[in-house]
């Protein structure tokens, strides 16, 4: 058996700090490409105007270090931890939260988290983060940071379909979620979908689907075809950029699947706005 690789958790803190600042000021290349393409394909004049403002917004954000959106999100992290890693120097979860704390405070990012969902007192440093950890083979740690704004998060849905509803049911509920979201989710949106598993597995897959390279397809041919069909149907809804009418309502539909129970067909739809922040780093 090989020796475990030691990683001091201060490395995780430093990475999360730096990633929090970067992801909120610099749009990822895949999302930039989506926006740039939409500028040429959008048919509505108001829609083109909205996309033009969004493009200009990105330039100002980068040049002047003003966050792309004032809602710098609740920090959502996926950590893929190699089983041969041994963390030293403290508590891993606290190290991640310390990175969020430093990044959001020193990076002039908005503190959008309240301590208790009923009492609603702001924690003042955007912690805690929502952290999903997975143990994988190897001795690396992959950190994916996807700060989530709640304009779009609030429009997300989960449906527990019956197996008899099949693929037509899946299409119907995804379109329903997007239609209901309309202008509220800051379209053009990215639609993350989780199909299968159970209640929370579906929701988690839908969120993780948003962190894929925008526009990339599922390796499963029937799911890739479903992504293509749904994108076309969503763009036919007419919602358009800013919800002000147009032909580009979504940049991409990204679906993840998992085996499920004989009695069920869970479908989770996690909608993200046009910013769809996501950034990866491997340590």
């Amino acid at each position, binding site marked *: 058996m090989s020796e475990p690789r030691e990683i001091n958790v201060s490395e995780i803190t430093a990475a999360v700090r730096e990633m929090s600042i970067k992801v909120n000021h610099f749009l990822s290349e895949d999302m930039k490409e989506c926006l740039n393409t939409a500028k040429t394909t959008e048919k509505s004049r108001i829609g083109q105007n909205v996309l033009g403002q969004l493009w200009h917004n990105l330039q100002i954000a980068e040049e002047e270090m003003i966050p*792309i959106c004032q809602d710098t999100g609740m920090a959502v992290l996926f950590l893929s931890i190699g089983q041969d890693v041994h963390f030293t120097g403290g508590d891993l979860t606290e190290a991640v939260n310390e990175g969020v704390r430093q990044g959001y405070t020193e990076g002039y990012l908005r503190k959008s988290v309240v301590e208790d969902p009923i009492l609603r007192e702001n924690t003042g440093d955007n912690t805690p983060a929502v952290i999903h950890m997975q143990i994988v083979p190897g001795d690396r740690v992959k950190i994916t940071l996807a700060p989530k704004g709640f304009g779009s998060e609030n429009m997300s849905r989960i449906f527990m379909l019956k197996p008899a509803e099949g693929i037509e049911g899946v299409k119907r509920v995804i379109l329903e979620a997007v239609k209901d979201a309309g202008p509220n989710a800051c379209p053009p949106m990215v639609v993350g979908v989780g199909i299968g598993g159970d209640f929370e597995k579906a929701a988690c897959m839908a969120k993780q689907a948003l962190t894929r390279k925008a526009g990339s397809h599922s390796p499963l041919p029937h799911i890739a075809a479903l992504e293509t069909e749904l994108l076309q149907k969503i763009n036919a809804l007419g919602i358009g950029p800013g919800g002000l009418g147009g032909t580009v309502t979504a940049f991409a539909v990204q679906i993840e699947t998992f085996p499920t129970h004989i009695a069920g067909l869970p479908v989770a739809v996690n909608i993200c706005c046009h910013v769809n922040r996501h950034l990866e780093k491997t340590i």
Partner: protein
Amino acid sequence: MNTMSNMNLKLPLSEEDVKKLKSGDTVTLTGTCYVARDAAHKRLKEALDQGIPLPVDLKGATIYYMGPSPAREGHAIGSAGPTTATRMDAYTPELLDLGLRAMIGKGKRSQEVKYAMKRNGAVYFAAVGGAGALLSKCIKKAEVLCYEDLGAEALRRIEIEDFPAIVVIDAEGNDLYETAISEWEKG
């Protein structure tokens, strides 16, 4: 629709200004407005319920639904785009009855809000959601008026200049989100 008139308007708006605005008009706004979102609305509602005078006079006023990121040195404000107005719907009819004349945000409004807008002669503008850096450049001054403990959700007063917006719901209740989307929807 697609009138794209590009009117320049001064805030606070007059009753006449509101009457001439039509759903789909694009405008730029210059002047003073208040900034409030969920938690500040809740405080305003609590004050009204307790019969305490409001900290601001809403007669003829404009509220921008927004919670900024912190300002860097030399900037009036941080990123400052609109938040979803729908969440303020529960509080809005009462504020409209107190004289609130214009709202800036993004997202759908309830039927109750539309009735109250019609009843009081008010207008709802959308700014581009997710254009917070761009819109911050149109904000020349910002100060916290009250509820400072709410941080990003404190009630603010801001001076805006050539702030780009579009009339989504006019005082007659026409709603661009409904008309424009059905115009572009492919059966």
